């Protein structure tokens, strides 16, 4: 990286690699510039919360779940512009896959479910966690396979048809699970009982959900800084153009959905064990609550941004919990009002609004320099 380089005149554009200044330099697009103390504060809060506010452990665990929902929805919905209304399918599918694995490891699933809760799996710590880890892993793999298979079909649809198509998947999965006797049908499955104290259980699942949310965030932070991030943004802005430029659009769409399914499947597996009971309507495939929440949270914070879903989920969850506690009876009205304000005044969400308000803080600036010459120190796009 010398500073005395000169701009090779056009004509040598094709063989620029030889120029010294560029050698070995790697560029991360969409690099995350969040100051380190933000991450430190978040980590301190996450680790300290169960000790400082033990009564709220479960509520805060739900916050991590909400962040997981918003982050995973945003991969296809925000970054790629494919508004799925059926992502909750992977949540429920992961839950059922882990239930079947966790029970199937120790007893016959059909006999267990036909007992309608008359039989419960009581295990020691070793067996319980062995089943939980294996079940969660199976949920992740199973949901990726499902996403790749279903993606081949639904990614032929665009715009509102994609939204309805994915909603159809979630709704039909819910009906199927409700009639499939082997997995308990409408009466559901009682999950293995946690072998310890209730508070210990809530801390364990708190840790599990926080870890998964943090891993998801870290993974997406890396993923959006690769070519993949730009490619899905290109698909969002103009898919036909992306095809005309030779981008493997289907491949990107499938990977985007598979990544969402991977993390959603695991969160479903963890959530099923946290509630202790899996049934299709309210727990596994809650299309009109969690299924819609994930969309609303991403829109609220700013879709297509790294932090937007996190901020949106936090705000949404806090408003939801506060109104549930202090405005009981009006909670849905309050949430509805929040959505109306969001859609009418902040369509681009909090992060999008900030970017429009202070574009220069997001690197959207005119560079007064006329050429690329002699500025080796200049660094990448923010």
């Amino acid at each position, binding site marked *: 990286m010398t500073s005395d380089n000169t701009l090779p005149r056009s004509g040598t*554009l094709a063989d*620029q690699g030889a120029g010294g200044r560029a050698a070995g330099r790697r560029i991360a697009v969409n690099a995350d510039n969040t100051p380190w103390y933000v991450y430190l504060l978040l980590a301190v809060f996450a680790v300290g919360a169960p000790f400082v506010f033990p009564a709220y452990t479960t509520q805060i665990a739900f916050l991590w779940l909400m962040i997981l929902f918003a982050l995973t929805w945003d991969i296809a919905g925000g970054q790629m512009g494919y508004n799925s209304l059926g992502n909750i399918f992977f949540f429920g599918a992961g839950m059922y896959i882990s239930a079947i694995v966790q029970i199937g490891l120790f007893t016959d699933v059909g006999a267990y479910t036909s007992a309608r809760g008359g039989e419960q799996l009581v295990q020691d710590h070793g067996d319980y966690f062995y089943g939980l880890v294996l079940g969660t892993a199976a949920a992740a793999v199973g949901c990726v396979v499902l996403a790749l298979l279903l993606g081949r079909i639904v990614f032929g649809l665009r715009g509102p048809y994609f939204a309805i198509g994915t909603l159809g998947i979630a709704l039909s999965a819910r009906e199927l699970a409700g009639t499939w006797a082997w997995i308990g049908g409408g009466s559901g499955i009682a999950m293995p009982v946690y072998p310890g104290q209730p508070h210990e259980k809530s801390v364990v699942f708190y840790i599990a959900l926080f870890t998964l949310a943090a891993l998801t965030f870290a993974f997406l932070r890396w993923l959006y800084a690769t070519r993949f991030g730009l490619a899905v943004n290109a698909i*969002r802005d103009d898919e036909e153009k992306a095809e005309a430029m030779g981008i493997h659009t289907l491949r990107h769409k499938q990977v985007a959905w598979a990544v969402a399914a991977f993390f959603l499947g695991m969160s479903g597996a963890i959530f099923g064990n946290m509630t202790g009971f899996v049934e299709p309507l309210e727990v596994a495939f809650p299309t009109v609550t969690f299924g819609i929440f994930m969309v609303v949270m991403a829109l609220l914070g700013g879709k297509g941004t790294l932090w937007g879903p996190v901020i949106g989920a936090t705000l949404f969850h806090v408003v939801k919990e506060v109104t549930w506690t202090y405005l009981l009876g009006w909670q849905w009205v309050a949430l509805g009002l929040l959505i109306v304000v969001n859609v009418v005044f902040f369509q681009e969400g909090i992060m999008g609004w900030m970017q429009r308000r202070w574009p220069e803080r997001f690197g959207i600036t005119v560079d007064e320099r*006329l050429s690329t010459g002699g500025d080796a120190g200049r660094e990448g796009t923010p």
Partner: protein
Amino acid sequence: MSQTLIAVDKVSKSFGGVIANHEISLSVTEGRITGLIGPNGSGKTTLFNSIVGYHPIDGGSIKFEGKEISELRVPQIARLGLLRTFQQTRIYSKMDCVRNMLISVPHRNASFGDLFKGYSGEQKDKAENLLEFVGLYQKRHLISGDLSFGQQKLLEFAMALMNEPKVLLLDEPTAGINPTLINGLIDRLKRANEEFGITLFVIEHNMRVIMNLAEHIYCLAHGEMLADGNPDEIQNDQRVVDAYLGAH
């Protein structure tokens, strides 16, 4: 350098009862600038769309470097190095110019693992140099959708160059651009052809532009090939003049 790069042979395409192209044959020679003119609705854009695989053709054959491509899909043809720009300029409007450029790197041999690669410094320098080439360097961090129409057109051209195509199909590159900018654009098209060795195939309505630019011109009218030749021959061809003045 006189190899035939694109060979279109008796290609027909109709939409319902409307015959847009009827047994069109033409060839685009490597390293040259070939023009395609014709009155509105004469089937120029339909022919472009057929070549890049946007829709299936009814009959005939289209060969690129001797390989039949009429059965391939749009992205597959693009990855062969046959790229087109759009009459209605298409860019990624919510991304800044640099990102528009970076995502336009060639995807010719992209493997699955390449999905998750970053960009090298060389690629970023190339993107910035090409933005400078079209005069957008200062605005490279602006959101491309906020640029003027002419600037978006220049950006689309730079994106196409970033992709290192063998041949570039340009659909009315000067439409909607002011006269001063047009001169600059002609100059840049010629330089892209001469310096980067990109074969150009250009649809153009502006006679001054196409006569300046192209070495060989085809003229379509009513979906059929009316005439072809060098700019002088075309300009003096009575059939071409009649077609444009509406004698047909």
